């Protein structure tokens, strides 16, 4: 019997309770979010350059984005590249990190704090630190490479390598996602592990048959959030390169920010935002659809 709460017909008291608990979000959505979202949708079908008033132009902006704006397509490419590399890397590394830090290794508390620290350092100073580390002449990275005989590239200052530097730097913050995995690992009942031990299961066996499946709702969360997060990326790249050099690290949101605030073209920027929105929506829908095959909720009893 399926017990997915989203698919069965509700009773009357159920409906009232649902509305009550969802209330804060519903009110907030209608008051704080719907208005601005609708406004931005309206802007996206207008020609709206400050300080002039918006003028309706239909799907002009959208058309231009895909047919006459190589910079936009470039930013899409950069963003997809970034997401394609960092989302899987972050997922795997974050989980591995949480798994190791959940074991009874010495000084575990210190290691966890250490790995978490990057998440609390403000992005602005992070940018300064990594610009220094990746400096082609005085930075530590190229110095270490030189010790092994490799001539380091110009990293953040070279259009061919800047993106790689940005992706490497994003790995520094892997400790942020680790927390959620840690919390999840905690909630796996130790009874299951004890039962597995009695059956003579090896650690790998335990990992694949118990830990991962029970962690799948959390992994699912991190995957969805990771996708949304990387597509929404702005500050971390802005403080490193501002989208340069030569737009090689110009992720979607940087081009959007420039269009909205530097070129003051609100209408065009709103169209960009809605394209991004639909893109993320489509990707998330895909992930959700696939979730029924690999995400296991303890509540759902299948077939």
């Amino acid at each position, binding site marked *: 019997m399926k017990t997915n*709460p*989203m698919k069965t*017909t*509700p009773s009357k008291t159920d409906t009232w*309770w649902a509305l009550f*608990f969802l209330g*804060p979000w519903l*009110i*907030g959505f209608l008051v*704080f979010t719907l*208005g*601005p*979202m609708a406004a*931005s949708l309206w802007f996206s079908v207008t020609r709206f350059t400050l300080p002039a008033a918006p003028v309706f132009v239909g799907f002009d902006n959208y058309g231009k984005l895909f047919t006459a704006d190589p910079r936009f397509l470039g930013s899409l490419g950069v963003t997809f590249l970034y997401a394609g590399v960092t989302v899987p890397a972050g997922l795997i590394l974050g989980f591995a990190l949480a*798994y*190791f830090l959940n074991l009874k290794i010495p000084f575990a*508390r210190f*290691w*966890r*704090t*250490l*790995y*978490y*620290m*990057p*998440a*609390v*350092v*403000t992005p*602005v100073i*992070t940018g*300064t630190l*990594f610009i220094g580390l990746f400096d082609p002449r*005085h*930075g530590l990275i190229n110095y270490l490479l030189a010790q092994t005989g490799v001539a380091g590239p110009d990293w953040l200052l070279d259009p061919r390598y800047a993106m790689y530097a940005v992706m490497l730097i994003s790995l520094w913050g892997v400790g942020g996602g680790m*927390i959620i995995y840690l*919390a*999840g690992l905690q*909630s796996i*009942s*130790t*009874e299951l592990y004890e039962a597995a031990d009695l059956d003579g299961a090896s*650690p790998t066996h335990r990992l694949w048959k118990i830990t991962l499946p029970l962690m799948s*709702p*959390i992994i*699912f969360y991190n995957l969805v*959030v990771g996708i*949304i997060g990387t597509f929404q990326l*702005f500050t971390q790249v802005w403080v490193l390169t501002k989208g340069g050099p030569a737009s090689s690290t110009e992720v979607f*949101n940087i081009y*959007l920010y420039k269009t*909205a*605030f530097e070129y003051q073209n609100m209408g065009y920027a709103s169209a*960009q*935002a809605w394209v*991004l*929105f639909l893109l993320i929506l489509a990707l*998330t829908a895909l992930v959700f659809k696939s979730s029924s095959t690999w995400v296991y*909720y303890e*509540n759902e009893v299948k077939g």
Partner: protein
Amino acid sequence: MRSSLSKKRSEAREILLAFVLVALGAVAILIPVAYMVGGSFASRDTALLSPQSIIPFEAKRITIDGQPRFVYRVIDAGREREMAVVDRKQGTWVYADPNRPADRKELPALGPEARVLVPTLHFDNFATVYQTIPMLRYLINTVIMIVLITVGALVSNVMVAYGFARFRLKGMGILFVILLATIMLPSQVTLIPTFVMFKVLGWNNSWIPLILPAFFANAWNVFLIRQFLMGIPKEFDEAAKIDGCGPIRILLLVILPELKPILITVALFTVIYVWNDFFNPLIYLQDPNLYPVSLGLQTFNSLHGYFGYLNAAASLMLALPPVIIFFFSQKYFIQGTVVSGIKG
């Protein structure tokens, strides 16, 4: 059946492997942090070395004739000595022996790479940061904001997640999609309409735009808590219902205790987010008396970047409280054992 010895050995191997990998990775993570710590003791006189040094070095200076003089590594009659420069003429400089300043020699002028450098730490940078901006007021502002926002976040997010996880409503699937969709729209674009809305309400230049939305749930946290909630067996709810509990009491007595690890996590995230957020205060606040610490410390991020060392000191101070809070709150969501199971 495996012997307990071989089991212990494989567990020990696992722990050793984990320890080695974690330690190696930690070194890589720590390097930028080390630079930040080192930079916070630097000053305008810090020398640039290649590769950049974590510990700040400055040129050694000694006072001769009432003036500070640079000390250079000089080649004098085939020997290398340290001497201080006391006079400069075109091409030739006059050097003095640091120990016997009357002992002087005329030798060729040298370049900056010949200067003697010594590690120099400026501990007063932190005091300077405190004296340059009204830290106490900023701290109080920040604490008030954090407390209010965290309370609002915990209450509203738990409520909404509970609603999504445990109750049935026509069209709930669509509502959940809308919930997630709200975070997919880039914030830069809703920034201006939101700002206009708050201005129309007259809440500009106050904390209200920063605090009020926290009481109306946040999609990321709702999603996260909902995922956890889905992992709590419904049998718990049923058992409580049999005992005569309504949904609210089920939430408070049954669900909340199970959610403790994730609630601490959400609280931690919220606190750290608010602590570090300077963009929203930047947009909504005009009066410097209302600034939180994050915005106040931006002062050192100035146009010509010549307060870099103060920026580092300020960032270090800004990073410490969350780190300390994290360190001590670990035991709440990294507990040794979590016992679940229906009590008889």
